[in-house]
């Protein structure tokens, strides 16, 4: 009986002790990818997949990553996080302990990333997420997690600032966010920026994900805000625009984030998508220049159009840039496939040191402060949908077209 009790204790203890990850000898880099390939966030998950796939395809087309004169191809091993943080964490365990991947390309959503980050820290496996934007990830200071898209509290203020420069200047704002890590952070970043810009916040609400927001928007309508800002995901954006149209309220500016730069959003809402503002850090027309894989943003957009019949958005681009960041760091330390723990630690140091120009813009990870390991090399952009195209309307240095303000009434479109 006593022996049985000891065995149970040992078993429990074993569950809490990380199984050492042994290196495997191979002539290709085995890369784990954890993302949302099913569930509510399947759209974003598949967009990240496109970004990672396009990077791998381009690297392999060139023969692989060149390390000390030898080319090593890359092989992506996918694990579905099912839009569920617990499933994401389990997928990370499997990729690390069973598949023995060299490093990981991370999830689409902030919620899943927050669940996966402690796992990769436990096993000391480097991960770059090409999508997650919640500031919570970086505030936790996970040593092995990096991200190519700047956090929303870094980018969100730019759009609010652009809108306050419109004439006549907006005075009031209603801010709504869906109740998930990213969307909530988006709404909070808009709130902080609005307070700083001395806009009067007439409504700030966080609503359960996926809900019909018509009753809430009816209440917002009665407050007649000049700006409505919403933090949510793709399907919620479509519902949000339709609900506003159904209740017949057109604010002077409608600001949304995440996914509205994707052609699919414009296709889904058609003319109702016109003149919606968004926050991003990359577009296919961004003026970038580099010598790794794609010479600039336009070349990347063309490659994406050819591969997926879609020029790609900032999430997809961020994922391809995550691949480039790993590639650059691997070359910097001359790491070969089947890395041991010491090499992986060196890889982390190399990632902290890289400062590389990519088709996506500059990738430079912060090494301290609230943005620890997030990319702080990019300048946030305010965009607006004009004529079915995404146009940069702010800040002034990046303007492609003047902003249309106030928005045209829904019924006059």
């Amino acid at each position, binding site marked *: 009986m006593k022996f049985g009790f000891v065995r149970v204790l040992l078993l429990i203890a074993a569950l809490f002790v990380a199984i050492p990850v042994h290196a495997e000898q191979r002539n290709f880099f085995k890369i784990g990818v954890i993302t949302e390939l*099913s*569930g*509510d966030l*399947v*759209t974003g*998950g*598949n967009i990240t997949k496109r970004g990672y796939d396009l990077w791998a395809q381009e690297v392999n087309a060139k023969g692989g990553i060149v390390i000390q004169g030898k080319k090593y191809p890359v092989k992506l091993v996918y694990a579905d996080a099912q839009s569920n943080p617990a499933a994401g964490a389990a997928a990370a365990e499997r990729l690390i302990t069973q598949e023995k991947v060299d490093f990981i390309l991370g999830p689409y959503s902030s919620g899943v990333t927050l669940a996966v980050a402690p796992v990769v820290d436990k096993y000391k496996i480097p991960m770059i997420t090409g999508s997650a934007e919640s500031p919570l990830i970086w505030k936790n200071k996970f040593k092995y997690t990096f991200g190519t898209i700047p956090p929303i509290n870094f980018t969100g203020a730019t759009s609010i600032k652009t809108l306050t420069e419109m004439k006549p200047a907006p005075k009031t704002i209603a801010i709504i966010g869906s*109740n998930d890590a990213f969307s909530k952070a988006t709404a909070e970043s808009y709130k902080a920026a609005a307070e700083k810009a001395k806009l009067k916040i007439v409504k700030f*609400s*966080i*609503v*359960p994900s*996926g*809900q*019909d*927001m*018509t*009753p*809430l928007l*009816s*209440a917002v*309508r*009665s407050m007649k805000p000049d700006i409505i800002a919403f933090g949510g995901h*793709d*399907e919620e954006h*479509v*519902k949000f625009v*339709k609900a506003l*149209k*159904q*209740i*017949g309220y057109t604010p002077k500016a409608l600001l949304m984030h995440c996914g509205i730069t994707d052609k*699919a959003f414009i*296709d*889904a*809402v*058609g003319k109702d998508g016109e003149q919606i503002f968004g926050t991003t850090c990359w577009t296919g027309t961004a003026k970038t220049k580099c010598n790794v894989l794609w010479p600039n943003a336009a070349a990347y957009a063309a490659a994406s159009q050819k591969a997926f019949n879609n020029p790609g958005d900032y999430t997809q681009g961020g994922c391809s840039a995550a691949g480039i960041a790993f590639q650059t760091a691997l070359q910097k330390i001359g790491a070969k496939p089947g890395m041991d723990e010491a090499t992986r630690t060196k890889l982390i140091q190399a990632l902290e040191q890289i400062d590389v120009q990519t088709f996506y813009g500059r990738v430079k990870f912060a090494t301290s402060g609230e943005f620890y390991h997030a990319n702080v090399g990019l300048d946030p952009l305010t965009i607006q949908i004009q004529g079915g195209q995404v146009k940069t309307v702010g800040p002034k240095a990046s303007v492609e077209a003047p902003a249309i303000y106030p928005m045209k009434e829904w*019924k006059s479109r």
Partner: protein
Amino acid sequence: MMELLPQALTDGILLGGIYITIAIAFSLTYGVMHVIDFAVGEWIMFGAFTGYYLNKWTGLDPFLFLPVIFVLYFGVGYVIQPVIHRVLSGTKGNPFLMGLVFTFGLAIMFRGLALTAFGFYSNSIPSAFSEGSFNLEPLGLTVTIPTVRLVGLGYALAITLILHYLLKKTNFGLGVRALAQHKDAAGLMGVNSKRTGSYVYGIYVGISAMTGVLLGCILSIGAQMGNEYTIFAFFVVVLAGMGYLAGVPWAALLLGLVQSIFMIYFNPSHTLLAVFAILYIILLISPRGLFGKGV
């Protein structure tokens, strides 16, 4: 804030209309077949995509296709029902649980199929009804009624009345009610349980598919949309009393009103908490639903 009350009530009733369309046929099929069909959301999703593609290919308003979609999906349901019937009429194990697992599996399979066939993007179905709204401000009320939601409420009431007529005024309905009460006794009275079950399941799948078109016009569509509607259908049917069809409209309206009022007057982030707390309290007081007439 009280000036928002008429709009809150209107929004709640219109939202309730949507919930009626989701839950009414689901309740019917439970009442007759005693199966909780976890694939209800997926039938809604398939209907939505059928409406989306028919609109895309022909350019005609999706509401014009409702009869076609009903007939098409009635056929699908009619063909599938015998398979479910076989699972439910097994003699080993627990057929009720097997039925649950079977429909749960169907839902997962349908979701995967849809993801492969329709892709991962969210979409919307355009309709002439989506464009306008009725503004009651000239009548002194700060109320706006979106046309498409009013059409949705009308559709919900029409479906409810048609089902009521079918069940109460026709021989087929008599057979359905007999089957719901006692399968063996109904059989002895000459009701063909297999065929009647197939008709009922066909009607349920047909109505659910039509509801998908409506939801695609009001909200949005996507391969993963079904899960959310399955939860609401289940909620309404449990609140109404499992299998008690007449309770569905009231339960759906209650759900819509609670959501709307809570979203406007209280903390919107706790809307679902409020909804499920109410369900919990009602079931605690009346375990057989709002009217105490559920199975």
